[in-house]
């Protein structure tokens, strides 16, 4: 049994990763509630943004900050573009079709990333990583703190936004009942666009953080979306508070498995296992699906 000392660095990394999972999870949940689209390209968008940032930081003379900003903005713009182009025509289809369509976006991005950047090993070091705290037995850097903080702040901020602003209320109305909301004169397309943009910005930020915390590799970052997905699913794609908690739990569990040497090789399974458990728990009441008819 590993000692408390052994656990400490993993608690830190776990919390940091958890913060990002929570951040991404919230982005996905809000988008899903507002548009019915579970964006499985969430990770790919962040990955590409991070690669663009890397390009700017390493291969141009522009200040690093520009790169980070571009990463976040890229996330927002690409996601918004997708939402505006492919949201309306698919709006009437079921959630599975909408989510599958986002896989199309994921492939396009994965192909583009592989083409432009290929699989060379890269790393991204945010300036915040260089500032660290010494907590006695373990080192914490500011990127990790930022990751956790951002997760918490965005969750609270989003919650407040949804409750207290008119745009947020419109989003909640859309999530509740799309058709009625449209008849109330709410500009549905604009509200949806806001949701797409917001979640896109979040994916850019998450991509940037993950590229530092985990590594800058297109495939890895793209499929890390699964951990965020696990958090969102535990929250039943509904509550962002639960998403926050779930994200942190997923991050912690994944990290804390590491010191147990016998199963540490399987630690990457943790988000999958948690997601599977969440899904099975969600489905414990069997429901006969409503007749879709053929029309």
């Amino acid at each position, binding site marked *: 049994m590993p000692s408390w000392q052994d656990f400490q660095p993993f608690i830190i990394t776990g919390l940091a990763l958890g913060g990002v999972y929570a951040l991404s999870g919230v982005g996905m949940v809000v988008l899903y509630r507002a548009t019915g689209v579970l964006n499985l390209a969430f990770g790919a968008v962040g990955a590409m943004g991070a690669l663009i940032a890397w390009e700017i930081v390493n291969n141009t003379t522009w200040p690093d900050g520009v790169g980070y900003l571009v990463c976040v903005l890229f996330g927002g713009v690409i996601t918004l573009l997708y939402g505006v182009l492919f949201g309306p025509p698919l709006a009437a289809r079921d959630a599975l079709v909408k989510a599958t369509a986002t*896989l199309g976006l994921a492939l396009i*991005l994965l*192909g583009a990333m592989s083409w432009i950047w290929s699989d060379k090993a890269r790393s991204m070091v945010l300036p915040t990583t260089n500032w660290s705290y010494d907590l006695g037995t373990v080192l914490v850097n500011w990127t990790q703190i930022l990751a956790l903080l951002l997760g918490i702040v965005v969750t609270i901020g989003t919650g407040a936004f949804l409750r207290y602003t008119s745009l947020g209320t419109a989003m909640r109305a859309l999530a509740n009942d799309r058709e009625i909301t449209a008849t109330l004169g709410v500009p549905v397309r604009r509200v949806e666009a806001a949701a797409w943009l917001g979640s896109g910005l979040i994916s850019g930020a998450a991509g940037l953080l993950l590229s530092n915390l985990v590594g800058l590799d297109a*495939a890895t970052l793209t499929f890390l979306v699964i951990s965020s997905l696990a958090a969102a699913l535990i929250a039943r794609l509904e509550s962002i508070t639960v998403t926050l908690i779930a994200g942190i739990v997923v991050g912690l569990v994944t990290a804390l498995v590491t010191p147990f040497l016998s199963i540490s*090789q399987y630690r990457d399974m943790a988000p*999958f296992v948690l997601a599977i458990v969440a899904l099975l728990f*969600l489905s414990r009441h069997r429901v006969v699906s409503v007749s879709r*008819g053929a029309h």
Partner: protein
Amino acid sequence: MATTTRARPGLSLGRWSSGDAVRAGIITVLLLFVLIPLPGMLSSYWVDVLTSVTVYSIVALGLNLLMGRVGLVSLGQIAVLALGSWVAARIAFAGGLPFPIVLLGAGLGTMVLGTLVGLPALRLSGLYLALITLMLAGAITVALRTTNFPNGGPGFLGHTEDVRGNPAVRRPDIAVNDPAYLRYAIVVGIILFLLALWHVRGRPGRAWAAIRQSEPAALAAGVNITLYKLWAFALASFLTGVAGGLLAAHVGKLYTYQFSTQDSILLLAVVLMGGIYSLWGAIVAGLFMRFLPAVLDNWGLPADLLTILFGVGILQVLLTAPGGLSQQFPRDMKKLAGLIARAVRRPAAPERSE
């Protein structure tokens, strides 16, 4: 998935119209051509490619059945393929069993695993089912990264890091060289295709059609929905497992990087593009997945272009033709025939691994 109304001949009744007879005739001729002279005519590079096409067409057939017949989306079929390869390798290295037994074992083993997994998953539907297949595939991939594939080593996992001697999964004695193995694979493919056809035209096919359109109507007609969904899962897993066996003997040595998560999504894309309402779509899918990259490689173009193309393909299919491109099948076939003709005439590219 939404269904469309198309004037297609109704399934079953085994009655053959003249149109059916002509089609069957053409298909038989094509098959005989592909089976007998073609493997001898091609360079070893293209023989390798076509064997790969055969394997992935079978995998695509499994997904085609799941999506087109029962409306279930699986995002993890490549992980199932890996399982099939694992089981096949395990059986192959366990003793001198004849190859058909290895294939059958791979199919049955994967079927059992697929069904066990499918059982709880089937309470979910639509999006959640797709997600759980993604999760399960991810878990299997992680496990495989650690256990690796059997390669003659000791114990249940049968894997050893000691690569001296380096045994490969053995091919059947009657089909050791590449062209012979291609023929073998095609024959297996034909058998599996017929198995799928037999299902689709019979009782399971009717039940699946009912389930896809309206579960209440299916229930009211007496269809045990869980059973038939499970049956579809089992069939798709069996097909994919056998394909895994074929793949194992094709490449000889198995590595986890050959079964990436991205491939599962690419498979989804090509199956959609090939068309999910006709079993032929699976062959188109196999060609997209393994033939086109070889062609592009031949022309010096990056395979990433195809990844992007397939991404666009998913969007196009979902936006416009929910039935997949099977309606445009004849048109695409002509284009493909042209591509094949041109590619075969070009000088062969150097040997490349899977």
